[in-house]
């Protein structure tokens, strides 16, 4: 009898199916990410005018805003993946959360570093204890703790359980910190560069290349997470095979 075709999303939680699918998907995502990044950054860096007050420094926006966006979204993705692990116990989900953490950390560091480089000529300081900056710093600490906990525990399932609960609790406290620092100090950082409210957006000349480069960062993040998840799955399979070898 022919097995009925399952088309649920959960099909992809099967590691084998996941590898098969991403085999086809990954080259496309990676290529698109490269195209978007190259287009967005070259367009942004060389074919947009300098801002009349900020000069050429405004162009760091094409790295700063997308990486900051991805830093937060990476944590959100880890939160969702952790929830899926806790509720449905799909191993791919736990591995994807683990794979996303270092990528998210690097995005956070990029955002902090580019912000500092921009802040030095514009605000006259590398660092200010501004709410946004501070909550990003706290987010970095959360990433460090999460990654360190993964690294410290030997048993994979125990590590997945503990880190996913840490991710849930950490998310609550990260949001709390975000609003607590608002209370604690006045902001220096400008408001959102992008929003659904048209009036708040940056001018169109900057806006379009920014969108392209955001798309590039999103695709880059997806490609890196897929790649790292595949690596984790294969590493785990290798370990299982080696363990079986030793048994024989």
């Amino acid at each position: 009898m022919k097995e009925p075709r399952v088309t649920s999303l959960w099909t992809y939680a099967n590691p084998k199916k996941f590898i098969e699918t991403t085999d086809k998907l990954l080259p496309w995502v990676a290529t698109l990410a490269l195209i978007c990044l190259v287009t967005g950054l070259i367009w942004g860096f060389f074919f947009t005018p300098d801002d009349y007050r900020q000069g050429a420094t405004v162009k760091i926006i094409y790295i700063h805003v997308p990486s900051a966006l991805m830093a937060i979204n990476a944590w959100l993705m880890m939160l969702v993946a952790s929830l899926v692990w806790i509720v449905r116990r799909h191993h791919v989900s736990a591995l994807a959360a683990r794979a996303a953490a270092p990528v998210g950390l690097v995005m956070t560091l990029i955002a902090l570093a580019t912000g500092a480089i921009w802040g030095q000529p514009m605000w006259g300081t590398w660092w200010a204890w501004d709410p946004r900056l501070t909550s990003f710093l706290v987010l970095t600490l959360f990433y460090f703790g999460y990654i360190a906990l993964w690294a410290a525990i030997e048993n994979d399932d125990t590590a997945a359980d503990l880190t996913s609960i840490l991710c849930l609790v950490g998310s609550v406290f990260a949001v709390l910190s975000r609003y607590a620092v608002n209370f604690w100090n006045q902001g220096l950082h400008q408001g959102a560069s992008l929003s659904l409210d048209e009036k708040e957006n940056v001018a169109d000349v900057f806006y379009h290349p920014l969108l392209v480069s955001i798309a590039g960062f999103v695709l880059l993040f997806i490609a890196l997470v897929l790649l790292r998840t595949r690596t984790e799955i294969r590493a785990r399979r290798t370990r299982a095979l080696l363990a079986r070898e030793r048994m024989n």
Partner: protein
Amino acid sequence: MIALLIRDLRLAMRAGGGFGLGLAFFLIVVVLVPFAVGPQSSLLSTIAPGVLWLGALLACLLSLDRILALDWEDGSLDLLAVSPLPLEAVVSLKALAHWLTTGLPLVLAAPVLAVLLNMPSEGYEPLIMSLLLGTPALSVIGTFGAALTVGLKRGGLLLSLLVLPLYVPTLIFGAEVARRGMVGLETTVPMLMLGGITCGAIALLPFASAAVLRVNLR
């Protein structure tokens, strides 16, 4: 439940339990601050609420791994896990015992140390209130961290790395209450926020702590 609480308190007070170590650490931190920043009394009184809060927080942090590590080593944690008492209650009691042996003495010692930092006397009441409201949250959050790292050898540094970011909101509001109180500003709003964080932590975190403890005991 009461028996468990009394047992924990006794263990903490007797020799080797580390009772008083937290207090001594608090004292040393506060004494070292004037050496580091200089003895000008105006500067010291400006930073006094922050220093006292930070000292209390670090003293609390120092004693966290004792909450569960000893019971883990001698196996009594396994016994507690199979006892009729739910694990959520066990971790809540552990947090309560930790607060009674560490948090409460810190609260009581804070005004004495505030004298050393030349804090104006109208700041004492908000300082004590804020510590009284905030330190239970520190204990409960710390118990969660201790439960996360209980199975690890040399988990102490990792425990600090995990717990310190979680302490940020408590520290912000707690130190803000103490600072505002000292300079005579309204303290109601940060006080309510601090109380909210503490109540939320007490209500929700024992479930997370018990869940991670179950994983670790598996």
